[in-house]
């Protein structure tokens, strides 16, 4: 295979991107494609699975195999894709609404099962595609088209949640830190087992506009100013960072992935065949 450069994975014929001016999605897309190039992924053995949302349209620009299913269900499809052919590299791209609001259950169960999938959630704090309503990661007291008097719910700390669900690799960065982000994504794809990367990203069109940050640079600046590294956070009392975006790698542990464990099942099952199948009562 000739060496792949990052833009060899890009569907140039569909450029310019569909996303709004300043939308962070393109930055995350770039980071992913560079990670693909770094890992020299074979397009034929790679499947990008997306949900529905602005970020969910990322597959339109990636020329590997793709699956674009329903809102919230990317990890369901991805699980089938991966387990039916464990040789595949499967990357699921989901929005915060997609991956963590409607799709929250698939997220925690995929993490628990440790299926070898890389989940990349672009958290832009709202439903971009449908016009900027609040999602499970919308911050308290901020404004969206459906929290016009200020949002009263707490936002998920997605990394903490996915970690608690059992994922062996969990990291968070933001699009301004694009080099770090690319690094996390590369590690995550390399990781055998369920890996999760959250990318904080601007949606200037909706979340930004409703919260006094009409431009992408403003919203990126805001993310940066409210971020703290995991290392720094660990040194300080919780009260000083609990309302900040903690940036860093939360987990990176060893854990045998689902497909590998299933090999044991197959071995035992095969052994049982010779013993004969005893009928069970329904």
């Amino acid at each position, binding site marked *: 295979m000739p060496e792949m*450069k990052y*833009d060899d994975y*890009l569907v140039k014929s569909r*450029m*310019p*991107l569909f*996303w*709004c*001016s*300043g*939308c*962070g*999605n*393109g*930055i995350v*897309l*770039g*980071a992913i494609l*560079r990670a693909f190039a770094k890992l020299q992924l074979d397009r034929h053995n790679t499947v990008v699975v997306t949900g529905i949302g602005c970020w969910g349209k990322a597959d339109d620009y990636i020329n590997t195999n793709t699956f674009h299913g329903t809102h919230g269900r990317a990890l369901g499809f991805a699980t089938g894709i991966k387990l039916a052919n464990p040789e595949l590299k499967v990357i699921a791209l989901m929005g915060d609404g997609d991956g963590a609001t409607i799709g929250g259950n698939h997220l925690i169960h995929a993490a628990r099962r440790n299926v070898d999938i890389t989940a990349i959630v672009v958290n832009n704090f709202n439903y971009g595609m449908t016009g900027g309503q609040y999602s499970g990661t919308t911050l308290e007291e901020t404004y969206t088209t459906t929290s016009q008097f200020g949002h009263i719910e707490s936002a998920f700390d997605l990394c903490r949640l996915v970690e608690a669900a059992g994922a062996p690799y969990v990291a968070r960065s933001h*699009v*301004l830190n*694009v*080099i770090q982000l*690319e690094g996390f994504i590369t590690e995550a794809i390399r990781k055998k087992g369920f890996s999760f990367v959250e990318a904080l990203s601007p949606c*200037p069109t909706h979340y930004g506009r409703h919260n006094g940050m009409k*431009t*992408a*640079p403003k919203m*990126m*600046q805001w993310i940066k100013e409210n971020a703290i590294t995991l290392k720094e956070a660990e040194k300080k009392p919780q009260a000083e960072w609990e309302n900040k975006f903690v940036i860093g790698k939360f987990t990176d542990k060893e854990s045998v992935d689902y497909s590998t464990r299933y090999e044991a099942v197959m071995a035992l099952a095969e052994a049982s065949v010779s013993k004969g199948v005893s009928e069970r009562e329904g």
Partner: protein
Amino acid sequence: MNRISVNTAWCKGCGICAAFCPVKVFTQERDGTPVPEYQERCTGCKLCVLRCPDFAIQLEVSGDEPK
């Protein structure tokens, strides 16, 4: 000197490149299109390339192979 070029067919004038270039290489046109006005300052850090959400910036670092 590093050479910066902007693909205006892809650029949407978001201003990210300009806002976050560490050495303020860019100015912007009225519609946001970035102009590498102070190309000579460019350190070749490539952050503008990496952060451009629209794959619109090409950077030729002098001495480097064109990428």
